[in-house]
């Protein structure tokens, strides 16, 4: 079961690399011509093609690219000729730091709110939280970000620009990136909480929970001993799905707060049409997305003894 899922994951990663590489090939006309513009002479275009290796057949270029990527070599940027690995290195770390920061706040908060809303469903608390979360899901990330800037940065609590030094201490880093992390938290928590609530409500309707209640067990014991172990699989899925969502949310938030992460690099490269850098960034984001989903599937399989010991 697990092995099969892992195999499928590897296949997905392979297909994604093929898609990201192949998308450029679908371009009508020629990459070199497209970048240099109509006014470029024959010779410059030919020279540029040779430099990019565009004179080789596509499968050879794909294998060379993939071989490099596996070893951490993403080629060079079209815009400034620097090796992409150098551009990405620190930024990837920054992005992971921010995503992790947001996740550490969001996950416990969302699970707690979700369980509470499920326990007291149809109460005023549940309804209020329902409206609030539905509203915050509908907010664009930059709206949330700017509202936080107006209220928390204008009043002087936190800096609105999350420029961080690589050698700053952890406390300093946490303080400077608090607003972007809070923005991501707000965006993700709503979704995660709603899904947790739905999963638990689904479970609370099953007959064995009613049985436990009829036996006279305390509500806390019913939830912790009877419901929670069975709710693990859906909750793991919820968490992983939303962490995967964090990955895309990070792009916009990084731009708002001028945070030196991978997302900002990607957006800059899109406007410069720096295809090699965008490819590398897209590959990293997509891999993180696939791996998180894979992890979720494996973990939720492991949390269910019936799936682990299959007859």
């Amino acid at each position: 079961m697990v092995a099969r899922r892992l195999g499928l994951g590897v296949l997905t990663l392979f297909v994604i690399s093929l898609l990201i590489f192949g998308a450029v090939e679908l371009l009508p006309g020629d990459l070199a011509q497209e970048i240099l513009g109509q006014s470029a002479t024959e010779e410059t275009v030919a020279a540029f093609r040779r430099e990019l290796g565009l004179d080789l057949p596509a499968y050879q270029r794909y294998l060379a690219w993939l071989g490099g990527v596996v070893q951490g070599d993403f080629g060079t940027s079209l815009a400034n000729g620097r090796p992409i690995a150098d551009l990405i290195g620190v930024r990837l770390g920054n992005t992971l730091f921010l995503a992790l920061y947001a996740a550490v706040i969001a996950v416990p908060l969302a699970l707690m709110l979700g369980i509470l809303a499920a326990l007291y469903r149809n109460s005023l608390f549940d309804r209020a939280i329902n409206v609030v979360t539905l509203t915050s899901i509908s907010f664009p990330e930059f709206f949330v970000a700017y509202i936080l800037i107006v209220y928390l940065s204008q009043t002087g609590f936190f800096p609105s620009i999350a420029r961080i030094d690589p050698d700053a201490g952890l406390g300093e880093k946490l303080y400077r990136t608090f607003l972007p992390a809070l923005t991501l938290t707000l965006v993700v928590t709503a979704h995660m909480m709603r899904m947790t609530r739905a999963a638990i409500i689904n479970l609370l309707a099953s007959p064995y929970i009613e049985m436990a209640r009829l036996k006279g067990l305390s509500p806390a014991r019913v939830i912790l001993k009877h419901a929670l172990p069975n709710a693990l699989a859906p909750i793991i899925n919820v968490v992983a799905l939303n962490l995967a969502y964090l990955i895309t949310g990070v792009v916009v938030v990084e731009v708002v707060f001028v945070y030196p992460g991978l997302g900002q690099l990607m957006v800059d490269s899109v406007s410069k049409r720096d295809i090699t850098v965008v490819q590398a960034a897209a590959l990293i984001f997509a891999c993180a997305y696939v791996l998180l989903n894979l992890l979720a599937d494996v973990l939720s399989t492991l949390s269910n003894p019936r799936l682990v010991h299959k007859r």
Partner: protein
Amino acid sequence: MNGPTPFWLSAVYVALVFACAVGLAAGFRALLALAAPAGLARTLRTAPLTASFGLLVILVYVIAALFAPLIAPFGEREVVGGQFLPWDSVHLLGTDNLGRDMFTRLLYGARNTVGVAFITTGLAFSAGAVLGLLAAVVGGWLDQLLSRTVDVLMAIPALIFALLLLTILGTSVVNMILVIALIDSTRVFRLARAVAMNIVVMDYIEAARLRGEGLYHLILREILPNAAAPLVAEFGLRFCFVFLSISALSFLGLGMQPPTADWGSMVRENATLITFGDVTPLLPAGAIALLTVAVNFVVDWMLHRASGLKE
């Protein structure tokens, strides 16, 4: 609008706005129930306040979009005064970074942003729904081909994939519409196929097949009417996603291009004002948020009504 507003004052503002919204929604519901024919009137009278509030907001947006040139005091691209003028009686909401009237551009933004989002959703929806229904009815290799293609396209996070495609195709409004329509049609396909899959196994479909009805009749007459409720709800939800993606791309400077008035780019262009404690740039972002919330409220109500058994 100078200096940050104290926190308690904004809490009072929020409470006031909320009270007004509730009042307006209740009034609008009563008005609708009076104006509508008898059958519809009962449905409308029992609609939750959130839903009638959503309907009211959507109505206001539609009016703003349709009659923008009549309501707006100035031209969309007309420079009417100095940069970043404060709010006064001539320029209701001040002017933007180039001295164009903010109120006017907000109105035209309803036309441009919502219009483009609507076109994109229409494209995504018709492509996705038609192919999804077709895959479910025809089955076999066509289903396999379409479903696997969609699986591959969905393996990459939407925003990341959009950025990659926009780098390759170049950033323009038409490209953005096509790219987002492509990406979102995969999600519509999934839903349409899943819904239709449950319908094709029904006896009346079998009967229609035995009668010798053609594919066209099967889809249009037998399946579509029974799949209408979830599909309409999906259209609303899809609109929200498309609208948010378009705003995000425009905010990143990769969507609508200046000088077109568009809410996403208006936030970006005027973002510097926020650092001076002026909330004007939040207005277009708020306009985006409000419409998405409104559509979500209405969809929530429709889903609730259509399913009947939800919770």
